[in-house]
């Protein structure tokens, strides 16, 4: 009789634990999903700025076709990116192309003085800050999500229930502000 009770108690504990661990993983997965869509919104917002920017620069710098093509290629790649890795790759390419575009713009004082160009430049740098912010959130969540999948005892069931580690949105070419591990238990 007593053995039966012990078995029953163990089963109940296991089920309760499973429910909590499962719900936690689902919550983190949703947060990661939401974090990625927040990056996506900013990437799209920037992609929308680019045709306008290219037109503005073209009006002054007519002979710089190579740069415009680079930017257009990066934009197409970004809009068609299907995975986190591809999007991050497109983002790296975009940064390079935009860097060259602004370097070219330096050589045209009239362009730099143009109201329109300045407004676009400001808008673009704001979008870039927001991409960085969204990436930090996403990477923080992914770190928590992946860690909780890999730590015992959750690792015993995470894979079986279809949870897979997610890819970080990484731009390795920058001296980036990496996620900082913050321990909330210390004052």
């Amino acid at each position, binding site marked *: 009789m007593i053995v039966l009770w012990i078995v029953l108690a163990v089963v109940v504990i296991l089920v309760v634990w499973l429910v909590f661990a499962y719900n936690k993983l689902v919550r983190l997965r949703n*947060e990661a999903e*939401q*974090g990625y869509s*927040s990056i996506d919104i*900013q990437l799209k917002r920037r992609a929308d700025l680019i045709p306008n920017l290219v037109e503005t620069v073209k009006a002054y710098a007519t002979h710089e076709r190579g740069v415009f093509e680079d930017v257009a290629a990066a934009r197409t790649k970004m809009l068609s990116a299907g995975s986190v890795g591809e999007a991050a790759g497109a983002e790296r390419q975009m940064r390079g192309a935009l860097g060259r575009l602004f370097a070219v713009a330096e050589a045209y004082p009239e362009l730099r003085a143009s109201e329109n160009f300045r407004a676009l430049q400001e808008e673009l740098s*704001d979008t870039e*800050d*927001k991409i*960085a*912010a*969204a990436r*930090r*959130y996403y990477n*923080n*969540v992914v770190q928590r999500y992946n860690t909780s999948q890999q730590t015992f005892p959750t690792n015993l069931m995470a894979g079986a229930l279809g949870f897979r580690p997610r890819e970080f949105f990484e731009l390795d070419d920058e001296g980036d*502000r*990496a*996620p*900082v591990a*913050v*321990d*909330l*238990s*210390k*004052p």
Partner: protein
Amino acid sequence: MTLQEQIRANRRRTAVVFLGFAVLILAFVAIIGGAYSPGLAGVLGIFMIGYGLISYYASGRIIAAVSHAKPVTKQDQPRVYRLLENVAIAAGLPQTPDLYLIDDSSPNAFAAGRDPKHAYVAVTSGLLALMDDRELEGVLAHEVGHIRNRDVKLMSIAAVLVGAIALAADMLMRITIFGGSDSREGGLGALGVAAGLIAAVLAPIGASLLQMSLSRRREYLADAAAVEFTGDAEGLALALATLRDDHQPLKHVTRATAHLYIESPLRDHKGLRSSLGGMFDTHPPLEDRIATLEKIGGFTLPAAAPAAQG
């Protein structure tokens, strides 16, 4: 303590604060009713219950009114609004909190509201004038940290309720001292006077202790959250150093709203502080917070200028 535990603890504490408030009201009403007039006690009781309800739903607006904080738009303040948007994205908030501006040259900031969808961050014009983007981002991240950690509801309600208790204690004091001297009932008994005076003295002390217990640890947690959002512990530490080195008093602040701010706006009230060894401080010392950030970020700020001690 994980974030979820912290959020759950905040919910529990909100319930405790409300319960504590209800007990204080009951005691207050009983004293008035017993010593003075049951009719007045009833009116006051209803008034206080109404006040409790209002404080739950409108604490943010009440605090804005008390602190002279006015809502501003992105067009009015593009620089700080953009930084706030960035920090809110990095925190994963469902939307950017509203931005309020306090016209005051003393640098300070606070966050208030009910939940992440009904919250705002208020900054003083002095903060905007004194800080560069990096420091400002640190301050905003700290405030957004309070919103993300679900501190704002508890802290906002506590502010409004502590204000109410101060008001009630004041009223009680007046009634016990002046009440009845020219009234038809013929005044209070000695026992009533004594009870009223004791309650009038104890209630604000209890309220302060409650307020203090809510806020000190939360400042460290919000600092940690800010670093998580910006990845820049040094930026926040520089901002705190800027706050430390500024000694202008804030104009529209009361004991009840003090714990909301990123740095205690009452820090120049030295008498109380030194006599009680910081027991009633609503905030941990800035030096300790900077030291914690230095540990997290692995950097060292230059030591405070001698003039900054204070």
